[in-house]
């Protein structure tokens, strides 16, 4: 379980995250939705322990973010890895060696599903294939929590469905997923719960189907119509 209390992160006088309270149950699949600069990435980085809060508290399964929790959390960063000179399978093997929870079967399943070339230099992969490689690295672990930062960013619409299916394939019961995105329509059916962020605040938060009932709108329509008012 993830418990966040009065979380604040200030960068150079800007409130990137502005007093957030949040509880996420084990096994939840959460969409973290908001425009660029709304604080989604900062929140994920704070959860992983990439940066420290200015104030407030985070507890993940009773522990504070940091080195100890890294074995339980898998993080998908928006930026690309710098190991462009390596071949895909070599990079995967090297990355896998750091984690005791690496799941070779999942790795093979995902490589097959994404049709990822195994012996090509990472530098020579298209943007879409690099994203799929990053997903293989992130999802092939039996971690408890998966933080995916904009996995659809820069992906052409035709490949999005394949990426979303791959994530769905990798998702297991009791694993918690937080999936940040500003591209809502393609991914919203994955989100059991959707959290809408704007200017560092949580504006709307609820079970996606309950929000559909309440607003009579899709998550994409709520994002476009309610967040930009």
């Amino acid at each position: 379980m993830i418990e966040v209390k009065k979380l604040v992160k200030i960068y150079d006088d800007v409130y990137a995250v502005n007093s957030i309270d949040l509880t996420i149950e084990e096994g939840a699949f959460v969409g973290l939705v908001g425009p660029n600069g709304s604080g989604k990435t900062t929140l994920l980085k704070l959860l992983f322990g990439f940066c420290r809060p200015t104030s407030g508290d985070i507890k993940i399964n009773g522990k504070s973010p940091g080195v100890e929790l890294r074995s339980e959390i898998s993080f998908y960063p928006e930026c690309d890895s710098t190991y462009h000179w390596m071949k895909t399978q070599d990079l995967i093997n090297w990355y896998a060696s750091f984690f005791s929870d690496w799941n070779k079967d999942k790795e093979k399943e995902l490589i097959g599903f994404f049709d990822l070339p195994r012996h090509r230099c990472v530098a020579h992969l298209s943007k879409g294939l690099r994203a799929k490689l990053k997903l293989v690295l992130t999802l092939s672990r039996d971690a408890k929590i998966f933080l995916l930062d904009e996995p659809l960013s820069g992906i052409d619409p035709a490949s999005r469905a394949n990426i979303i299916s791959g994530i769905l394939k990798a998702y297991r019961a009791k694993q918690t997923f937080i999936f940040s995105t500003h591209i809502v329509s393609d991914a919203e059916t994955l989100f059991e719960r959707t959290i809408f962020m704007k200017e560092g605040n949580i504006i709307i938060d609820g079970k996606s189907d309950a929000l559909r009932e309440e607003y009579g709108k899709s998550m994409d329509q709520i994002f476009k119509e309610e967040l930009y008012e």
Partner: protein
Amino acid sequence: MEIDKSKPIWRQIVQEIKERISRGDIEKGVPTVRALAEELGVNPNTVARAYREMEREGIVESWVGKGTWVKKGSRDKLKEEMVDEVIGGFVKNLTSMGLSKKEIKKLVRKIDD
């Protein structure tokens, strides 16, 4: 099945499975939660919620480790429900056009075999 993302998805799944049962596309075994989630591209918990609802309504039953099965008599029951729904709508449409029930009955009798 085309999902309408502006309406609760679990309800649409209930409707879809009911239709598949009444058409006879599903006779005994309902797809596993995971299989249907992957087929539709939706969260497995949403599918599980739909299955729980159908269990509550007595249409299917779930056995741990064995999956979800259509209960005996469900197909007939669902067909009946759907026919009632269509007839209800049909009568409502015609009465809103000013026809009395008596007149509707007369019209129905005129339908050729």
